[in-house]
């Protein structure tokens, strides 16, 4: 059977060049970058090369890049680290209602510790309004943290405008760019963010490879204290192979972003149109234009997401959903709730994320299978039967 992954944001196969670059650092160049002898040379050089490549992806200076092991770690280091270094300056944090849990869950903890948190609402497309940000900032505000793009509905925030507002009030801005980095142009110098999180596995790099950009004027405290790796901001022996992989992935992303984005946008739009034509009662979630090029989020009305996911899986197509049953916490997507999607549509949400292994020849099969699965599940759906009755009654 054909196997088609449309869940590339959850995981995607490495670029072959990435794995190839990593392998020698498991074997010949296994040394510790901190070593004072020859065995430390190749890993240390490779690490600094990777740092320069990551910096290049977002137009930062190499010394502004701190390596971590996940976007979650970067987000925790950014927020907790900045607050720890700026305790005396205020106690108010502004974020948005569509952030990833690695931002939202720390904010809950910080609230218990006495911080005041404002979560800005979003519009029906998932956009934060710069005017609302401006109104929310007080003289106690010490941090604004708003994502660059939403991993679920794909919506890209007006980052430049948002940062400008925060900057005009002198408040440092963190952006969780885990979903965005590698897929949209980011220029930290132009944008003026203080902190930016990114993760290699979102652009064909390895798991366990991530980074935090910390602008030169920004002071933070480490989360993991110990040795003076990463300028003392993140202790622990560096995971050289993973970080080498991150470097190569960042370099490839920088060099080929335009082509990648063009190709995948074309494919995504083709898939979207075919699906909307052939499967009735589909709803597009997120912004129609300002969205990640590889992301498509649809609600399949009248059916539940896990059943959809399992049925698609039986057809060899791997997708994801924002339904309660597919979330490990058994809660339906807070993002879909934040854009005001009715619960029924949230439960039937389908996240399709494309990757380098997808191609146009797959589109007909995907379309045919989703149409069949939606039909099959609808035929056993009480909501669909109710809908049909209402249509009949109105006719």
């Amino acid at each position, binding site marked *: 059977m054909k196997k088609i992954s449309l869940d590339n944001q959850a995981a995607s196969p490495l670029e072959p060049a990435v794995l190839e670059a990593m392998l020698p650092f498991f074997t010949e160049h296994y040394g510790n970058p901190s070593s004072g002898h020859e065995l430390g040379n190749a890993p240390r050089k490779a690490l600094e090369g990777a740092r320069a490549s990551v910096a290049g992806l977002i137009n930062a200076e190499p010394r502004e890049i701190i390596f971590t092991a996940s976007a979650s770690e970067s987000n925790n280091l950014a927020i907790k680290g900045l607050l720890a270094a700026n305790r005396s300056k205020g106690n108010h944090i502004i974020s948005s209602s569509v952030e990833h849990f690695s931002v939202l869950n720390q904010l809950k903890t910080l609230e218990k510790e006495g911080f005041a948190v404002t979560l800005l609402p979003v519009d029906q497309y998932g956009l934060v309004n710069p005017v609302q940000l401006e109104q929310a900032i007080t003289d106690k505000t010490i941090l604004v943290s708003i994502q660059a793009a939403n991993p679920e509905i794909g919506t890209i925030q007006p980052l430049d405008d948002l940062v400008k507002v925060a900057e005009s009030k002198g408040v440092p801005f963190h952006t969780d760019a885990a979903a965005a980095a590698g897929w949209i142009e980011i220029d930290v110098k132009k944008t003026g963010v203080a902190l930016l999180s990114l993760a290699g596995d979102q652009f064909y790099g390895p798991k366990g490879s991530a980074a935090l950009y910390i602008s030169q004027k920004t002071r933070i405290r480490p989360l993991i204290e110990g040795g003076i790796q990463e300028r003392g901001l993140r202790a622990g022996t560096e995971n050289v192979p993973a970080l080498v992989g991150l470097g190569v992935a960042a370099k490839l992303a920088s060099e080929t972003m335009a082509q990648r984005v063009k190709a995948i946008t074309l494919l995504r739009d083709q898939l979207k149109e075919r699906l909307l034509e052939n499967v009735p009662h589909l709803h597009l979630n997120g912004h129609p234009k300002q969205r990640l090029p590889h992301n498509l989020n649809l609600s399949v009305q009248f059916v*539940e997401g*896990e*059943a959809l996911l399992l049925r698609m899986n039986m057809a060899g197509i791997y997708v994801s959903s924002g*339904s309660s*049953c597919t979330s490990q916490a058994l809660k*339906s997507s807070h993002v879909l709730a934040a854009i005001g999607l009715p619960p029924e549509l949230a439960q039937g949400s389908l996240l399709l994320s494309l990757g380098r292994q997808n191609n146009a020849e797959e589109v007909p099969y995907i379309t045919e299978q989703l149409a069949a699965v939606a039909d099959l599940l609808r035929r056993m759906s*009480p909501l669909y039967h109710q809908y049909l009755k209402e249509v009949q009654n109105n006719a």
Partner: protein
Amino acid sequence: MPEYSDKVMDHFSNPRNIGEIGEADGMGEVGNPVCGDMMKFTIKVKDNRIEDVKYLTFGCGAAIAVSSMVSEMAKGKTLEEALKITNKQVAEELDGLPGNKLHCSNLGADALHKAIEDYMEKQGVKGENAS
């Protein structure tokens, strides 16, 4: 994938007794879209036995398998026997359900009981075992 047993996957893949009985003797509904699972059971009763049972289900793999299993377990049983079917038994018949699915998706027996109670009420006979 959730750790579903082969039996769950069998019932999910080939659900038995799907549908809605046109002139049902009893109807029971549980759940709502907010929690992610909804089941509507309809039954046909003859000589105090469940002659036919059908359901419509909006829900996850577990919810669909549970509905299917309940319909198989109930068919042919007397109303008293059917009222004794518990959610726990249903899960056991399915060779277990993942822990986190036990609470929210395992509502099939409840829907069946509601359908039976509905029938009994219509008959003017309030069942002793009604929960």
